[in-house]
C-alpha cells in the first residue's frame, strides 16, 4: 500500500481560489501534465512533499454534485472512476454559508476529506470570524485556513493531507430532518441487488432521489420498473413534506443545515462600507458603469499599443540583423533561405509574445482576478443577446483585440458547446493587435485617422452581421444569464503570473513550433520560385475579383502565417518603399487589400488553436467562413469605393 501514489482531488465551487491553491502547492511539483478535454479540463500534477509523491487533481469548479452541467459531470465521473484516497474541499471562507452546501454533499460520499478555508483574509474583511475547531467538530473532518494568493497555510495543508491519508478517517454523512432521513433509509432498503452502488448505499440512495427526470431516472426505469415505482412513491412523500420537488427538498435540507453550521461556527460583525464597495457601486452603475467600461478598455488598448509597438520594433531588430548577416554570408543559397525562414519563425514568435501577448494576458488576468470581467459581462449581456450570444462571451471578444489565440482558449469557460463554437467562429474577425498594426500603418497613415476609425467601426459592423447570420444557423436557445458576481478584490501578482505562465506554455508548445515550421516551408517555396506559381494561381482572385496587382498574391500566403507579414511582404512584392506606396496603388486597391487581409483567414496560430480546442470541423468551418466573408466584403468595398 505504501508504494502506491495516493490520489488527492481538489473540489470546490467556482471562484473559491482552488486553482490558485493547487498551483501554489504544485510549486513543489515533480511533474505537471495537462489533459485538455472537449469542453472542460482538469489539471493533474505529481507533487513531491517531504520525500513522498502525491498525485493531485484539480477538478473544474462546481456548485453541486448533481450531474447537470458539463463541469459537474467531469467532477462526478472523476470521483467515481478514480476513487480518490482523499478529497480536499476548497471553500471561499467569505462565502462559507453557501459553500458548505457542497461540503455537506461531499460528506455524503464518506471519503476521507479535508476542508480548506481559503481567502480567510477576505472573510475577515467582511467581518466574518470563523472558529475552525467548532467547524471541525460539526463536519467531522480536519479544517485548514489558507490564503492561497500569498501562499499562507499551504505547508499546514500538506501536513494535514499527509496525516489524513495516514489516519484514513471516513466522515459520517450529515443528518437531515427525521422525515427525510426515514425516506432515504427506505430507498436504501429497496435498492436492488444489482444496482450500481456509488461510494456507499446512502449516497446512492440520495442521488437516486435527486435524479428525478435526469439520465439516472431513465436508467432505473429501463432496468427495474418495480424499483422505479417505489422510488417515485418515496419521492412523492418527500415532495409532500415541503410542497416542492424531492430534489429541492433535499437541496433545502443541505441549505438549512449549512446555514445552521455557519451560524454556530461564525461570528459576524457588519463591516463598514469600504472604499472597494464604493468603487464596486460606481462600476456597476447603470449609467456610469458603461462609461467606466469604455475608459477601462480604451485605456487598456492604448497602453498595450503604446508599449507593444515600440517594443516589437526593438525586439525584431536583432532578428533583422541576423537575417541580413545570413544573406551576406550565404547569398541566396538554399541554406540561407531555410535559415532565414527559421529566424523569421523564431523572431515572429518573440515579437508576438512579448509586446502584445504578455501585456495583454497581464491586464486581462488583472481584470479577471479583480472580478471585473464578470461585471463587464453583466453590463453587456443585453447587447450580446441581440447578437445571439451571452454576456459570458464578452471577455473573449475583449481578449481577441490583443490576440485571437488566448481568446479562443478562453472560450473553454462557456458551458454550452453551441456558444463556444459561435464565439470561436466570430473571434477571428476581431481585429487583433497584428491587424490593428496593418490598419494603422496603411489606412491611418496613408488615408488619415478618420478612415482608420471608420474601418474599425465597419469591422464591428461586419462582426455583428455575422453574429446575426450565425444565430440563424446555430439554433439559439439561451436559457438566459445566470452568473455569479464575485466580490471585487485587489488581485495578487502571483496568481496573475501563474495564468500568464500557463497560457504562455501552451503557446510555446503548440503554436510557436507550427509558426517556425510554416516559416521554413515558405522560405523553401520562395527559394524554388514557387511564389510566381502562387501568384499565377491566385491571380483570378487577386486581380480578377479584387482588382489588385497580381504580385500581391503571395503576400496573402504570408498573411496566413502572421497577419502583419502581409504588410511587410506587400512592399517587397510591389518593389516600393512606404512613401511611394500610393503612387503604385489606388485608394480603392488599398482599402480592398486591407479588408481582404483582415478577414481572409484566421492566422496559422489561431487556426491551430481552433483545431486543438474545438476540432477539425470547426477549424475548417472557420476557414470557409473567413474566406467567403473576405471575398464578399472586399469585393463590395471595391464596388462601392469605385463609385466615388
Amino acid at each position, binding site marked *: 500500500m505504501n508504494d502506491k501514489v495516493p490520489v488527492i482531488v481538489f473540489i470546490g465551487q467556482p471562484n473559491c481560489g482552488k486553482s490558485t491553491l493547487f498551483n501554489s502547492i504544485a510549486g513543489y511539483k515533480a511533474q505537471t501534465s495537462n489533459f485538455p478535454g472537449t469542453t472542460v479540463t482538469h489539471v493533474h500534477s505529481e507533487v513531491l512533499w517531504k520525500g513522498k509523491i502525491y498525485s493531485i487533481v484539480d477538478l473544474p469548479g462546481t456548485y453541486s454534485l448533481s450531474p447537470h452541467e458539463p463541469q459537474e459531470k467531469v467532477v462526478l465521473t472523476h470521483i467515481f472512476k478514480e476513487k480518490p484516497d482523499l478529497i480536499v474541499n476548497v471553500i471561499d471562507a467569505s462565502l462559507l454559508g*453557501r459553500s458548505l452546501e457542497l461540503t455537506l454533499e461531499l460528506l455524503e460520499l464518506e471519503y476521507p476529506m479535508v476542508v480548506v478555508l481559503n481567502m480567510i483574509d477576505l472573510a475577515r474583511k467582511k467581518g466574518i470570524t470563523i472558529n475552525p475547531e467548532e467547524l471541525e467538530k460539526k463536519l467531522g473532518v480536519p479544517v485548514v485556513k489558507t490564503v492561497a494568493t500569498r501562499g499562507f497555510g499551504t505547508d499546514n495543508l500538506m501536513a494535514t493531507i499527509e496525516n489524513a491519508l495516514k489516519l484514513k478517517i471516513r466522515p459520517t454523512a450529515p443528518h437531515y430532518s427525521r422525515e427525510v432521513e426515514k425516506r432515504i433509509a427506505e430507498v436504501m432498503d429497496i435498492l436492488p441487488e444489482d444496482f450500481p452502488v456509488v461510494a456507499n448505499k446512502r449516497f446512492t440512495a440520495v442521488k437516486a432521489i435527486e435524479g428525478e427526470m435526469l439520465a439516472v431516472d431513465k436508467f432505473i426505469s429501463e432496468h427495474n420498473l418495480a424499483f422505479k415505482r417505489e422510488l417515485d412513491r418515496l419521492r412523492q412523500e418527500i415532495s409532500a413534506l415541503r410542497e416542492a420537488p424531492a430534489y429541492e427538498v433535499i437541496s433545502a435540507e443541505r441549505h438549512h443545515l449549512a446555514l445552521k453550521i455557519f451560524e454556530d461556527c461564525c461570528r459576524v460583525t457588519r463591516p463598514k462600507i469600504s472604499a472597494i464597495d464604493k468603487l464596486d457601486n460606481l462600476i456597476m452603475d447603470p449609467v456610469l458603469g458603461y462609461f467606466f467600461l469604455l475608459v477601462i478598455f480604451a485605456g487598456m488598448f492604448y497602453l498595450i499599443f503604446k508599449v507593444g509597438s515600440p517594443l516589437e520594433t526593438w525586439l525584431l531588430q536583432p532578428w533583422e540583423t541576423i537575417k541580413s548577416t545570413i544573406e551576406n554570408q550565404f547569398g541566396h543559397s538554399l541554406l540561407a533561405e531555410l535559415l532565414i525562414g527559421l529566424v523569421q519563425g523564431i523572431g515572429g514568435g518573440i515579437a508576438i509574445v512579448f509586446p502584445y501577448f504578455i501585456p495583454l494576458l497581464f491586464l486581462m488576468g488583472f481584470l479577471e482576478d479583480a472580478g471585473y470581467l464578470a461585471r463587464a459581462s453583466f453590463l453587456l449581456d443585453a447587447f450580446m443577446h441581440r447578437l445571439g450570444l451571452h454576456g459570458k462571451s464578452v471577455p473573449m471578444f475583449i481578449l481577441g483585440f490583443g490576440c485571437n489565440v488566448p481568446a479562443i482558449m478562453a472560450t473553454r469557460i462557456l458551458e454550452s458547446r453551441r456558444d463556444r463554437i459561435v464565439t470561436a467562429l466570430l473571434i477571428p474577425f476581431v481585429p487583433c493587435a497584428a491587424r490593428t498594426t496593418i490598419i494603422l500603418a496603411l489606412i491611418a497613415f496613408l488615408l488619415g485617422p478618420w478612415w482608420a476609425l471608420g474601418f474599425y467601426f465597419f469591422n464591428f459592423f461586419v462582426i455583428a452581421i455575422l453574429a446575426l447570420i450565425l444565430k440563424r444557423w446555430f439554433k439559439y436557445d439561451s436559457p438566459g444569464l445566470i452568473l455569479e458576481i464575485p466580490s471585487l478584490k485587489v488581485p495578487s501578482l502571483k496568481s496573475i503570473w501563474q495564468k500568464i505562465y500557463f497560457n504562455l506554455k501552451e503557446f510555446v508548445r503548440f503554436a510557436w513550433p507550427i509558426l517556425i515550421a510554416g516559416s521554413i516551408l515558405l522560405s523553401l517555396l520562395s527559394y524554388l520560385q514557387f511564389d510566381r506559381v502562387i501568384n499565377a494561381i491566385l491571380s483570378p482572385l487577386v486581380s480578377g475579383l479584387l482588382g489588385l496587382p497580381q504580385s500581391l498574391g503571395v503576400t496573402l500566403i504570408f498573411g496566413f502565417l502572421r497577419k502583419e507579414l502581409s504588410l511587410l511582404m506587400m512592399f517587397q512584392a510591389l518593389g516600393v518603399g512606404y512613401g511611394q506606396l500610393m503612387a503604385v496603388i489606388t485608394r480603392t486597391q488599398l482599402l480592398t487589400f486591407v479588408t481582404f487581409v483582415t478577414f481572409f483567414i484566421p492566422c496559422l496560430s489561431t487556426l491551430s488553436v481552433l483545431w486543438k480546442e474545438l476540432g477539425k470541423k470547426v477549424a475548417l468551418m472557420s476557414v470557409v467562413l473567413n474566406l467567403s466573408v473576405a471575398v464578399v466584403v472586399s469585393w463590395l468595398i471595391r464596388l462601392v469605393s469605385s463609385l466615388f
Partner: protein
Amino acid sequence: MFGKKNNNHKLDMGPTGGLCSLLEAPEGEILKIVEIRGGQGLHRRLLALGFHPGDLVTLENEALMNGPVLVKNLTTDTRIALGRGIAQKITVEVATGDER
C-alpha cells in the same frame, strides 16, 4: 443605445406586500423568495448557486437595454446576475419585520 431607466412598471406593494416577480420588485427592498418557477434545469441551477425559497434577497441594480438584474442573496451573502427572463420566474414578497 442608452435607453432611459424605467422604474414605472414597478408595483407598489405597500409595507406588508403581496406576491410579485423579482423583476417587478422594488429596487433596494428586502424581499423573500417564495417560489422559483420555470424549467427543472433553471431550478436546479439556482438551488446549486444557493438561491432557495425562503432566502432573503434584494434587487441591487439593472443593466441597460433590458439587461440582466443584479440580485444579492442576504441569507448566503452572494451576488448573481440574472437575465430578465429568469428573474421573471422567481416569485418574491416583501420580507416582514421578523424575517429581517
